[in-house]
């Protein structure tokens, strides 16, 4: 089972990211679970969402304490929230930032593998708004062997309708532009 924790701000689509990923995994015949950190929804406040993907039925219903992957949708959260909390030693932190993985590693003292992508830049160019949920899914799939990239296209089309093409473009760009520091 792979456990992924998403960090974003209310309204940026962290929950949507987790949901789209779970829907794609389920379409592939896998088992998956996606859920928000439960509570009142506040636009702009730091939020967390969770996704589990497994080849077998998922029984656990608690939140994820030791994720395999942490995905950060908003660079300003890196200094506010301990995003690496509980991240497994062989796990990976993937973050939206203008900076290189080396610069982020030095600044935050991250011990695990690290990947970065300028998701805000990509989202501004492709979507015209700094909403990074679909862009960061591209970064996630470029780094982690979770599923066939094509499996996400259908859920993206279903969710975004006429805006799907632009979201898919942003997703593809992040897939190709993400940098990993081992």
């Amino acid at each position, binding site marked *: 089972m792979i456990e992924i924790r998403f960090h974003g701000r209310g309204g940026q689509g962290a929950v949507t990211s987790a*949901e789209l990923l*779970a*829907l794609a995994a389920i379409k592939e015949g896998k*088992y*998956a679970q*996606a859920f928000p950190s*439960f509570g009142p929804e506040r636009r702009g406040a730091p939020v967390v969402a969770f996704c589990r993907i497994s080849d077998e039925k998922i*029984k*656990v219903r*608690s939140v994820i304490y030791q994720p395999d992957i942490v995905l950060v949708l908003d660079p300003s959260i890196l200094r506010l929230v301990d995003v690496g909390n509980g991240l497994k030693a062989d796990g990976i932190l993937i973050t939206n930032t203008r900076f290189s993985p080396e610069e982020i590693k030095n600044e935050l003292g991250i011990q695990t593998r690290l990947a970065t992508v300028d998701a805000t830049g990509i989202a501004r160019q492709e979507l015209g708004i700094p909403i990074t949920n679909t862009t960061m899914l591209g970064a996630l799939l470029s780094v982690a062997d979770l599923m066939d990239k094509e499996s996400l296209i259908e859920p993206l089309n279903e969710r975004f309708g006429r805006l799907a093409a632009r979201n898919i473009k942003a997703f593809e760009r992040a897939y190709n532009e993400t940098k990993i520091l081992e």
Partner: protein
Amino acid sequence: MATRVGIEVSIAAAEAVKQANTDVIAAYPITPQTHIVEHLSELVNNGELDAEFVPVESEHSAMSVCSGSSAAGARTFTCTSSQGLALMSEIVYAVSSLRLPMLMILANRSLNSPLSIWNDHSDVMSIRDCGWIQVFVENGQEVYDHVFIGYRVAEDRNVLTPFIINLDGFVLTHVIEPIEMLDQEMVDRYLPPYQPLYRLHPNQPVSIGCFGPPVLFTETKRAQDEAFNSTMPHILKGWQEFGDLTGRYYHPVETYKTEEAKVIVVTQGSLGETASIAIDTLRGEGEPVGLVSIRLWRPFPFEEFREAVKGAELVVVMDRAISYGGPGGPLAGEIRAALYSQEVHPRVVNFIIGLGGRDVAPDDFVQMVQQAKARPGEWYEIYGVRE
């Protein structure tokens, strides 16, 4: 045939209410409410479900509308949570005494105060004795399935009793997971249209809910008690036939690795599947531990429970509500009552956990089993309090 889809549990439940060809939905449309009613209002609005949707001004009115709707012979649904149930409760007792079948999904959440919107079982425990059939579900598939089962059992002429599905708020209602949705043809085969025995109709006047003076009240209540106590075989039949259709068989108590178990953990609702991971861990360490999940809360399955814990020396009961000044949690009280008649009975230890949305992880169950084993006597404790 069935189709496996990824879907939010609340939306799947609403889709089941649609597939069940529900006639009337009455619900208070804002907090505390779930996506179940929100989605149903969309289905009615866009013409996918030919039903009357009544967005009432309070839960008290919601249940009042359901009362009239069921009395008129309509297949009736509502949904609420926590404070909403508390406000509704006056009429909750009335409809069961009037023998009006209907279905309610109760997204279990805590009662104030302090103000909380999160999950526990204090809401449903406040109406424990309301005379509705009450089941708990562990996952999204089970709530989807029980919409059909609930209607089928409630509307059975041998039953004619309203039915509550307890679904853990947030922990289940807000999760996306895979659910097998039945084809309409399967639903129609399992769930025939509701044929009321009596109904309010202007051409055939009847009175429902009359005055009950002392000379009649006791007899009426005895009739209700007898009728309720004879629902079990019909509930079992509803589960059996659903299992024959879908391959998913449900039971009054669900057991996991209880064979030869000396220690049995007892849960209700979504805690069961999480607890089963702890059971696997403990079994892996050679501990003879098993799990019993109480699916049927009312009527309480005394016989089935005793059978499930036979041979156990220690029963560790997990309650998600407090009974202030009582013997522990409400579930533990029932478990002790079930075991009292036994010549030799296991020690019962009670933990109160997961209050107001406090997370419960598999390791918590391992810790509680170890604590229960280490400390003699029968006692209860609120687990995981930050000191």
